[in-house]
């Protein structure tokens, strides 16, 4: 029992890092994704193609590979100092998730009918007013389901950070195998993930319900 408590506390500490990666990724990837989605919808062709190619590369390669490249790449190619491990993780996660989010945003924005923009225009609204006062909330409603899917994937993807030795929950659990020959802490991590994704599922259900008052 004592062992169980100490393992729980230790794993909780690792899960703190997991949550940190999770929260910081969302914090940066939400706005950056919107920026990228504007780029991929730009009327300026070279920019659009540049952004689309970038999104293709990021979505078309494994996040694990991106982590390794961002951590070891600069040192191997340019002989620069290595980034701090945690920074490298954040860079990789933010870029990767911004690209996924940008596609979700794009889908949401493009699904809004032209009539909504035109209605704003003939009412003399400015472009930013149309976007923020008319379009945005409708987009948010549209993207909650795909976004919640992606966010729950992020919870589990954080475990990839262990590939460059960032001490998140899986790393912590694995150290019990190496040091004490205990396998059950690794299985036990599943409970942490399940608990957290359960909370998120409830939260997204609540948000969806909140926005049920209109049909967009």
């Amino acid at each position, binding site marked *: 029992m004592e062992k169980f408590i100490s393992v729980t506390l230790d794993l909780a500490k690792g899960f703190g890092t997991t949550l940190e990666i999770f929260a910081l990724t969302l914090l940066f990837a939400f706005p950056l994704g919107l920026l990228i989605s504007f780029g991929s919808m730009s009327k300026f062709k070279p920019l659009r193609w540049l952004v689309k190619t970038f999104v293709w590369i990021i979505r078309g390669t494994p996040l694990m590979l991106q982590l390794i490249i961002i951590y070891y790449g600069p040192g191997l190619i340019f002989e620069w100092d290595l980034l701090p491990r945690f920074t490298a993780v954040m860079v990789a996660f933010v870029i990767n998730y911004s690209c996924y989010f940008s596609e979700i945003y794009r889908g949401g924005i493009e699904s809004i009918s032209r*009539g909504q923009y035109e209605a704003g225009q003939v009412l003399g609204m400015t472009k930013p007013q149309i976007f923020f006062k008319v379009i945005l909330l409708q987009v948010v409603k549209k993207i909650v389901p795909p976004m919640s899917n992606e966010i729950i994937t992020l919870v589990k993807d954080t475990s990839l950070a262990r590939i460059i030795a960032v001490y998140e929950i899986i790393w912590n659990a694995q150290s019990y195998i190496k040091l004490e020959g205990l396998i059950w802490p690794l299985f036990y991590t599943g409970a942490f993930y399940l608990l957290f994704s359960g909370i998120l599922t409830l939260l997204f259900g609540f948000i969806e319900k909140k926005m049920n008052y209109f049909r967009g």
Partner: protein
Amino acid sequence: MAILEVKNIRKSFGKNDILKGIDFSLEKGEVLSIIGSSGSGKTTLLRCLNFLEFAETGTISVNGEIIYDGEANAYLSDSQIREKRLHFGLVFQSFNLFPQYNVLKNITLAPSLMKRDTPEAIEKMARELIHRVGLHDRIYNYPCELSGGQQQRVAIARALALNPDILCFDEPTSALDPELTGEVLKVIKELKDTGCTMIVVTHEMEFAKNVSDKVIFMADGIIEEMGDSKQIFENPESEKTRSFLSKSLEK
């Protein structure tokens, strides 16, 4: 003096000439119906007046002042376009209400953003408009809770809230069930009685005949025939007009 004068409006999309030189004028308080088959350019004409499309040539004058000149105005800034648009209001075929706002907020949103008046005065004006279109018991409802006819009446109130010189309707009843068209047409008719200048693109021949002062029949991007409604419907000169009317009135 004419409230609206349109001269030589031309518009093409790629190689398709949609409008091939449109001229007409409208007096204050008049109601103009534009009829014609699909693809004749009626809607494009209306969209040019509201600057959702930009005519390549031609001028649009309101109250004697040229507000648009196709040759000279190629590079209007956004804010200039917005200012010019406000001479016109537009009611869409598909209503295009803002789904996340209730009836009241749909109407007050644009005037509030423009800070046209105090919030209290804007709300008071909106309530009066809602009353005028007969929806005083629907003030706090959301668009999805309203019938198509009710939505279109809200859209009319929303357009009126900006007090346009000329209110345009793009087939305002085409998306409605037949039993709902009446309530929308009734509102338009009542607006006429209050002296509102209107341009209505419509397939409702009865409405065009009975409510409008002037009728334009468009075919293939030109005005085939124009005149007062009585003359157009009872004594059309053009062969095309006659065949269109006989087909439309058969229905």
